[in-house]
């Protein structure tokens, strides 16, 4: 019975991919032709993909940290990130820095936005855990999941409301629902040229700064979880909550800490996306959130290194799809990847390989 179901599932998936292929422009001879004509644009897309992927990875970490510790897919996480981008936009607007503002003013605005966005998202995430998830911790697994969807709706509508507050925040623009332009505050000095490399590839300090900040956040999180007392308590709680309690670990505090960290990362990602893509919109929580969630699943949900790897892979694949297939179909491809992993390798690329012994 089970085997039949699996076989049918596989067939459906393969059929969908075959169908999606030609419709979505998966025409290999044309693609290879384009790459041969302009290898630089391939490198260019890889770079863009890596930077975007690093941001996606930071959001993916929020999904994976929370899943690791309470086995909940926090559907509200993408929307939390969106609120972070709105907070960043609001702060930047309050500082009155526009495109091409002085470096000192930009730096001050960006650092303030980082601080406030990370604090807002960390705080909201902790409150969400406390009031929407913790009361359901001993309920059936479906209950917190539905609660998470509810929180997601609340955040989306909060974003829509916030986006409409143009009388308070003129930077929000005329229409609450339409994309808002985010000032281009990062300097654009051509890094390759400065290094004396002649190539038809744009890699500027803007890319570099976003990439470096993302990598610093990821390395910082990894070191925290791997080597600090609280980080180890987080891992212990994730691996066996009952045992963690017996060790005298306050697991409620550790779970709250996990939401705090995941939220702060989402807030930072909100700022980075604004600075990098120069546009934010209230539906971003879904579109970018989906990529981040797929990245987390691709790497093996619950696995921190996996989320980082998955983020970069999804970023690169999205960039390649944008360039060589069609940007309209990129989300469909991301969904297809998600389905394929869930069907063929639910543990993800770096799924846990140490079996628990009974």
């Amino acid at each position: 019975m089970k085997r039949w179901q699996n076989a049918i599932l596989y067939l459906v998936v393969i059929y969908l991919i075959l169908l999606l292929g030609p419709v979505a422009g998966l025409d290999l001879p044309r693609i290879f032709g384009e790459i041969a004509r302009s290898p630089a644009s391939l490198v260019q897309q890889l770079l863009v993909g890596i930077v975007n992927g690093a941001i996606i990875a930071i959001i993916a970490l929020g999904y994976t940290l929370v899943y690791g510790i309470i086995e909940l897919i926090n559907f509200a996480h993408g929307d939390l990130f969106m609120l972070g981008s709105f907070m960043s936009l609001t702060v930047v607007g309050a500082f009155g820095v526009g495109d091409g503002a002085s470096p000192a003013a930009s730096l001050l605005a960006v650092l303030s936005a980082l601080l406030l966005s990370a604090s807002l998202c960390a705080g909201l995430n902790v409150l969400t855990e406390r009031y929407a998830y913790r009361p359901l911790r001993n309920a059936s697994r479906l209950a917190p999941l539905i609660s998470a969807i509810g929180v997601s709706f609340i955040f989306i509508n909060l974003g829509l409301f916030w986006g409409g507050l143009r009388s308070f925040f003129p930077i929000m623009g005329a229409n609450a629902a339409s994309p808002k332009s985010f000032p281009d505050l990062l300097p654009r000095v051509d890094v390759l040229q400065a290094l004396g490399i002649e190539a038809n590839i744009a890699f500027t300090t803007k890319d570099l700064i976003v990439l470096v900040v993302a990598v610093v956040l990821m390395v910082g999180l990894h070191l925290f979880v791997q080597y600090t007392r609280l980080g180890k308590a987080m891992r212990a709680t994730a691996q066996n909550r009952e045992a963690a309690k017996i060790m005298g670990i306050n697991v409620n505090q550790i779970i709250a800490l996990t939401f705090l960290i995941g939220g702060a990362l989402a807030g930072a990602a909100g700022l980075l996306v604004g600075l990098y893509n120069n546009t934010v919109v209230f539906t971003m929580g879904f579109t970018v959130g989906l990529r981040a969630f797929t990245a987390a699943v691709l790497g093996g949900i619950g696995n921190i290194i996996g989320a980082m790897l998955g983020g970069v892979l999804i970023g690169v694949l999205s960039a390649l799809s944008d360039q060589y297939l069609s940007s309209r179909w990129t989300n469909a491809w991301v969904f297809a990847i998600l389905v394929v992993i869930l069907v063929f390798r639910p543990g993800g690329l770096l799924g846990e390989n140490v079996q628990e012994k009974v």
Partner: protein
Amino acid sequence: MTLLELRDIHTYYGNIHALKGASLRVEQGEVVTLLGSNGAGKTTILRTIQGLLRPRQGSIRFEGRALESLSTEAIVRLGISQSPEGRLIFPRMTVQENLEMGAFSRRDSLGIKADTERVLMLFPRLRERISQKGGTLSGGEQQMLAIARALMARPRLLLLDEPSMGLAPMLVTQIFSIIRDINTQGTTILLVEQNARMALTVAHRGYVLQTGQIVLTGTSKDLQSNETVRKAYLGET
């Protein structure tokens, strides 16, 4: 001096009345064993002592201090640690990290270092496995790690829940001899066992638990010669 005293403890799982007025005492320096067949409520007693379950009625005193309303963190800090049923090793943490988690309630890094050395002397096998993941250890090694981890809290009362479960006879003998050493080095122990024969060789006194109530108590010698114990727990006819 009385280290731990339970008086008339009633603990429930929802509507299931698991402990029905259990009372027991552990004196400083003793090994006390709690015997009983499967489902008698032994694990429930240990979980109630550590604050993982709340008694609906009754009192628990540790050195005269009431434990019923304290959090597990506070109870561990007061000096009660446990090697739980099923060992509950952290499978993706190394042996070293598992030991560090055992010392989570402490801040004295020098003392923690000294105690790591001490438990590795007690369990040399763990030293060989120190950077291996907990989940890759054999059952016996995991049991050693569970006991070692509990010792890392430097407990004044060590709770052991069925340390012999699922182990080969030779390993059982070894574990019990280490339990005796731990006690000789000054740690008071409350030992839960189904293996009454072994438990009574290391314990000074024992209690017999049946469906949530203490039905018998006495020195190990008394219990070993008791008719009921011989029949029900020592497998004699």
